């Protein structure tokens, strides 16, 4: 076997082994646990049951899922509305500062998202930065009660996830051939038509990529509602956390986790199908 062949196999095998051990195996354990009976003392009993999944049919859980879904969807829409124009302008920018601006989008990743969420508290709290500025400007006469509301949760989610929307959009829009826009103008298309019939369809892979990267984590980011929402607004992520850590019901927590995993898998499948039907196959591989 040649050296480069050996390198190839060692490389692939080690990654495969790593993922099997630390991603596939834990997931299989969770899947396995979700079919076991709960035991308050020993955490679980070695007995196959579907009761955990049946318990999820309770309207209460459905409400949590639905609430979670709505928050994640709203967060995604806000991220898309903020991120698309930004990514478009950034990608089209003919300035030396282009890379610097992109760099600034990435910099927050250097600090733990948990710490950044705590930092948001100091901005949003009653005597925080935001209220102080607004009061001193005379725009408001009494402090806004934002912290520990669903608004604060939304601000936290959008803040944390916005880069995940911008980056795939940027990668996609940057490759958009500007000559196609010239061609559309030449053929008589106005700005609306150019956007709807040329730019939007060609950046669809970036949009879908961004939606998935934002929507999926938004469903399960338990610490943001915990910290900013005062545990009032419950996400699926919080439900999993509660079942494991507070209620000590590991099998039920596993079942919730599995439902979440499969719904995410379904979304990824939809994404993959859209990409397959879309023509720009190469633009997806860049994500």
């Amino acid at each position: 076997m040649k050296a480069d062949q050996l390198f190839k196999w060692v490389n692939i095998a080690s990654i495969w082994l790593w993922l099997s051990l630390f991603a596939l195996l834990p997931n299989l354990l969770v899947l396995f646990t979700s079919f076991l009976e709960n035991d308050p003392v020993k955490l679980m009993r070695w007995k196959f049951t579907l009761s955990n999944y049946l318990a999820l049919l309770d309207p209460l859980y459905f409400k949590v899922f639905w609430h979670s879904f709505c928050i994640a969807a709203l967060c995604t829409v806000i991220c898309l509305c903020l991120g698309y124009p930004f990514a478009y302008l950034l990608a089209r920018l003919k300035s030396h500062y282009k890379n610097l601006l992109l760099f600034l989008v990435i910099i927050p990743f250097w600090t733990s998202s948990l710490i950044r969420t705590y930092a948001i508290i100091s901005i949003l709290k009653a005597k925080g930065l935001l209220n102080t500025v607004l009061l001193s400007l005379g725009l408001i006469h009494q402090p806004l009660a934002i912290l520990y509301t669903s608004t604060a949760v939304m601000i936290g989610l959008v803040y944390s996830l916005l880069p995940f929307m911008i980056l795939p959009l940027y990668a996609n829009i940057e490759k958009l051939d500007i000559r196609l826009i010239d061609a559309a103008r030449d053929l008589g298309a106005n700005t609306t038509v150019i956007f709807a019939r040329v730019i939007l369809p060609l950046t669809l892979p970036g949009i879908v990529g961004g939606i998935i990267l934002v929507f999926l984590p938004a469903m399960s980011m338990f610490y943001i509602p915990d910290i900013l929402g005062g545990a009032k607004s419950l996400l699926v992520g919080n439900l999993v956390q509660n079942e494991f850590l507070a209620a000590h019901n590991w099998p039920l927590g596993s079942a919730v986790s599995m439902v979440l995993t499969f719904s995410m898998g379904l979304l990824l499948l939809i994404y993959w199908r859209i990409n397959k039907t879309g023509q720009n196959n190469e633009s997806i591989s860049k994500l």
Partner: protein
Amino acid sequence: MSGSVLALSGVYKSFHDQTVLENIHFEVKQGEFLTLLGPSGCGKTTLLRLISGFEVPDAGTIYINGVDVKGLSPQQRHVNTVFQSYALFPHLNVFDNIAFGLRCKGLDKAVIRQQVEDALNMVKLAPLSQRKPYQLSGGQQQRVAIARAVVNQPSILLLDEPLSSLDYRLRKTMQIELKQLQIQLGITFILVTHDQEEALSMSDRVVVMHDGRIEQIGTPREVYEEPSSLRVARFIGEVNIFETQVISVDEHVFHVMIEGKAFTLKNRRHFTADQKIYTLVRPEDLAVWSPSEVTDTTQMFPGVVEQVNYKGCTVDLMIRLESQTLLAAAQFFNEDDEKLDFHSGESVWVHWIPGWEVILPDES
């Protein structure tokens, strides 16, 4: 401006203080095939973008169908472009690409269908109407780009080096097809190219450009046979240049010495004595004889064959004169001279038929 579909008058354009186009004047008649010819960077593509409305001139006026198009966007101009890279919409199939412009006009569906199908038949792509651009060959993409533009029935079709990415043989075929299409549609075509052969074989008139200026406008025959400057002569085809000085001028003729031989040439450009001039002779206008074939050598130059290139229809010779000047001569096979059996090192006599030369004044 009557009768001309396009007229440019005193057009200037510069980018970042660098002048790209300078004092451009010309008119294009309805149904004409005009070529903008020049080396890359001469401003020909910028000129095309000024006409299509993607760029705005710094000064000067552009008239399309007699109307000043200042302030009109590309959308509002009755002009369509075939882009160099075709710029086909990758997410739309052939039919939808061609229908794009018609749909922007908001035409009736049935009308669009009919017109797109006519356009597809015209470029012989009807069976491929459902294909996406990436499923087509270069030549097919080219045809879609042409169909997408002409289906809008523009007053002028602009073509930006449309054949440059095709291979030689396909380019030849497309040149003929494009020319036929232009005659059939009667639309004014303005083609940008750096390929002089393409310009000569396709156009009614050629605009030769250099450094943002128009060097010459004329029929292919005029720009080739009567170039107005050394630049045009050098850019279009090969040329031998003899640098001399006018000795004396008679009524309609003047006398010069070229390579040590006395010539009396017609004074069309009113040269004066002592003026520096250039005498230009195309390689195919030079005749090459072996010493045994000639008797009168008063206006012939002696030389030695340095290189022989067999080209199929011609034999191209490089001949070194005694003055060390190197001449290019193309010899055709014909009934007088079937063998054309030259070999390097051979001594020969070179001459041309008086009157076939072009004489230009020194511009510097």
